[in-house]
């Protein structure tokens, strides 16, 4: 028989009430345990949520990371089965950046110095901008005129 | 009772009578009382009436036992005694008196004209007739015995668990065999199978007695069929749902497909049954003196008479060549199919006369006839013709796979109130 008693109080208070009133003669097995170790928050089926949202987790390293990945093209696969959390190239960059930024006030300088430091350790950088220049398609000249009209330059007429 | 006595006293017996039947009236009466105590009909009322009397004599210890042999000790003893008596009455050896003999004896001594076979006198071992003993569900500490108690289907989940466990053992062995002890980072490999750390932990529990030689492929057994839903419910003693049944069969099927599943044959045999191949009933006719094999084949309404001789591969149908008679490639292939499967198209000359039916039916009839006729030459062909291992050379899909099986499909009859066999009349709103 379904009851709506579960909305009132907790399991503990209900059973306590039943014991006191004599509806149950014996304590359930778990009763003493729940009495001694009560939950941190008593169950309440209509408890209102704590207002507000969770805070955003943003760190100063995130800015550096953003800049790093924008500048340089690094697709480094990470083996997630390895649990020793080996630092990635970006992590190493940030370690250097942290040191340099303590000395330098200008972020860009610290950035460049960290890059040099990594290059000394043997990391080759390829800049995204350079690569884009190589792959750029040459723009065609506008050769349209009514003499040599064709489908290719039909919109240029 | 008087009619029975009458029957016993005045019966005309053709076989040699046991002396007991030349009875005086009083002896006959006593005889009947003996029957009553021996024989029971398969109705619950009678059983409970009989055994309720015996119940009171039962010992406390026996009544609480869950082992059927102990619990029903008295009934079993009574049965054994009755069996001996019956054997002696029939003047047979009581030691070798089988269940079949009991049936014959009862049919002889207590002939019944009742239509329902269940209602006739039977005498079976009590364990077959008495209800199964309900096992205790809760132990003395108040805890249920079965781990899946709260699911409602503990036996079902026990089976699932065993299958799962066996399968993981099998996976482990596959890996061992494949990579041996040379796996450098075996954990990574196990994980790459997306089994996770589960398998790694199970690997500790696995026994080491399986040799790589047991990693054999020979486990596909076509003559097995999994038990039906009702049979499974009977075994598990639980009313499992259709979904659960499908799930169980899927798990068992996956288990069977494993390379070394023949190691757990005993476990799987509990859940499957031998299926007699239909072609075991095929009779093989001997060759004639001249070395000709005669046989018949039927399909729909077509009947074909086949003669096969050793030859060069000529096929004549109703005095026409194969190519003349059957225009379509489909039909030509049907006719040649048994020979194609055996790779013997060059070895035999076939002459057939076929009547009735249409082209496809005649082609099917000839095919069956040829398959049957070929068996006369070499019984070993039966295996190939049964399973039809044609490899990858199929280019036309054929009707059935079993060449030795007479295709029972016929044209479905037209039903009244419908236009054809299935087609109904057009539905009209008014």
């Amino acid at each position, binding site marked *: *028989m379904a*009851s709506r008693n579960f909305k009132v109080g907790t399991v503990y208070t209900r059973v306590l009430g039943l014991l006191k009133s004599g509806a*149950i003669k*014996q304590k359930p097995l778990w009763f003493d345990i729940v009495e001694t170790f009560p*939950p941190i928050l008593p169950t309440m089926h*209509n408890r209102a*949520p704590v207002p507000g949202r969770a805070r955003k987790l943003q760190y100063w390293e995130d800015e550096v990371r953003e800049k790093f990945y924008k500048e340089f093209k690094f697709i480094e696969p990470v083996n997630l089965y390895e649990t020793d959390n080996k630092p990635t190239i970006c992590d190493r960059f940030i370690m250097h950046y942290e040191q340099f930024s303590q000395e330098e006030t200008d972020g860009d300088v610290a950035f460049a110095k960290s890059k040099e430091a990594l290059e000394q350790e043997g990391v080759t950088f390829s800049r995204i901008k350079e690569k884009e220049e190589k792959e750029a398609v040459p723009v065609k000249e506008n050769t349209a005129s009514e003499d040599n009209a064709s489908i290719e330059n039909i919109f240029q007429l | 009772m008087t009619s029975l006595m009458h029957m016993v006293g005045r019966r005309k017996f053709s076989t040699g009578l046991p002396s007991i039947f030349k009875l005086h009236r009083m002896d006959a009466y006593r005889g009947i009382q003996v029957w009553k105590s021996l024989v029971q009909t398969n109705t619950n009322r009678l059983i409970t009436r009989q055994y309720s009397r015996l119940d009171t004599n039962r010992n406390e210890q026996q009544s609480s036992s869950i082992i059927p042999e102990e619990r029903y000790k008295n009934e079993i003893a009574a049965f054994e005694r009755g069996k001996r008596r019956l054997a002696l009455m029939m003047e047979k050896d009581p030691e070798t008196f089988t269940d079949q003999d009991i049936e014959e004896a009862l049919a002889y001594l207590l002939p019944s004209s009742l239509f329902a076979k269940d209602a006739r006198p039977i005498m079976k071992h009590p364990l077959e007739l008495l209800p199964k003993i309900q096992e205790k569900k809760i132990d003395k500490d108040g805890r*249920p015995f079965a*781990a899946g108690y709260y699911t409602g289907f503990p036996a079902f989940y026990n089976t699932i*668990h065993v299958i799962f466990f066996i399968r993981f053992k099998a996976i482990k062995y596959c890996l061992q065999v494949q990579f041996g002890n040379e796996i450098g980072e075996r954990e990574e490999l196990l994980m790459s199978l997306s089994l996770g750390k589960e398998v790694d932990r199970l690997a500790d529990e696995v026994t080491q007695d399986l040799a790589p030689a047991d990693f054999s492929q020979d486990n596909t057994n076509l003559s097995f069929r999994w038990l039906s839903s009702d049979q499974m419910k009977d075994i598990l003693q639980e009313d499992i749902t259709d979904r659960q049944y499908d799930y169980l069969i899927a798990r068992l099927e996956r288990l069977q497909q494993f390379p070394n599943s023949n190691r757990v044959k005993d476990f799987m045999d509990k859940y499957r049954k031998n299926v007699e191949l239909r072609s075991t009933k095929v009779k093989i006719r001997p060759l004639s003196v001249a070395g000709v094999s005669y046989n018949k084949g039927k399909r729909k309404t077509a009947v074909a008479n086949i003669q096969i001789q050793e030859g060069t591969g000529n096929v004549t149908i109703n005095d026409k060549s194969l190519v003349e008679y059957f225009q379509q490639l489909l039909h030509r292939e049907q006719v040649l199919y048994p020979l194609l499967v055996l790779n013997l198209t060059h070895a035999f000359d076939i002459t057939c006369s076929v009547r009735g039916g249409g082209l496809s039916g005649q082609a099917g009839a000839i095919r069956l006839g040829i398959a049957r006729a070929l068996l006369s030459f070499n019984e070993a062909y039966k295996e190939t013709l049964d399973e039809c291992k044609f490899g990858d050379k199929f280019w036309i899909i054929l009707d059935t796979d079993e060449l030795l099986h007479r295709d029972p499909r016929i044209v479905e009859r037209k039903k009244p109130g419908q236009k054809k066999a299935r087609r109904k009349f057009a539905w009209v709103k008014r």
Partner: protein
Amino acid sequence: MISVHILIYFFSSISIVIGINPLAHKDFFDVRQLYSIKSLFDAGVHLGHKTGVWNPLMKQYIYGDRHGNHIIDLNETDRHLFLALNVTSHIAYRKGVILFVCCRPQFQHLVQKTARECQEFFVIQRWRGGILTNAHKLLPVPRLPDLIIFLSVPYNMDAIRESAQANIPSIGIVDTDCNPNLITYPIAGNDDSLSSLELYCRLFSTAILNAKVQRQNDDNYTIDKSNDGETPRDNSRAEMAS
């Protein structure tokens, strides 16, 4: 309403060893040793769902929002997990019936195996409605569990409601998209990945087995196993059951 409670079996089978009351200790079964926050982190317990699917009731258990994913506060998890494991151990020590519930297909074998290892009970694949509140009809003997552990909350809301109706304390792994209100001892943590569920299963089964071993040792040392000075053990229903 009252009939529901008569269904519950009360076996106060505590054998109190002279001088030792497990309840008097804060951590009688040394549950602290079973895990560390690092082990929780390594198993990925802190990984919550995307922020868009969260349940606002989980706010106090969430550490923050990292690029659109909620991160569960492992300090909170630690507190709640310790409490839950402690309670589980005590109930196992008293030979209580503990029921593992997880109706997700990817974890069914894991849960079944865990339950069988520690000789407790499980419900996988489907929770039969009314198994607790309508036990007279659905179970051969209506013996209800003393503790229910939910390894996946959103798929088992009806079961959680039923355990509250039947007045059975529950432990539940609540992810950021779950409603923890009806669970007696919620534990905030990831309930979707195999690694984290394996961790929980291992923790619970170890705690239960340790408690049972402890119980066996204590039983061997008791001078008085009978119920002197305690409420008499209700054996009548057990006998009815047999």
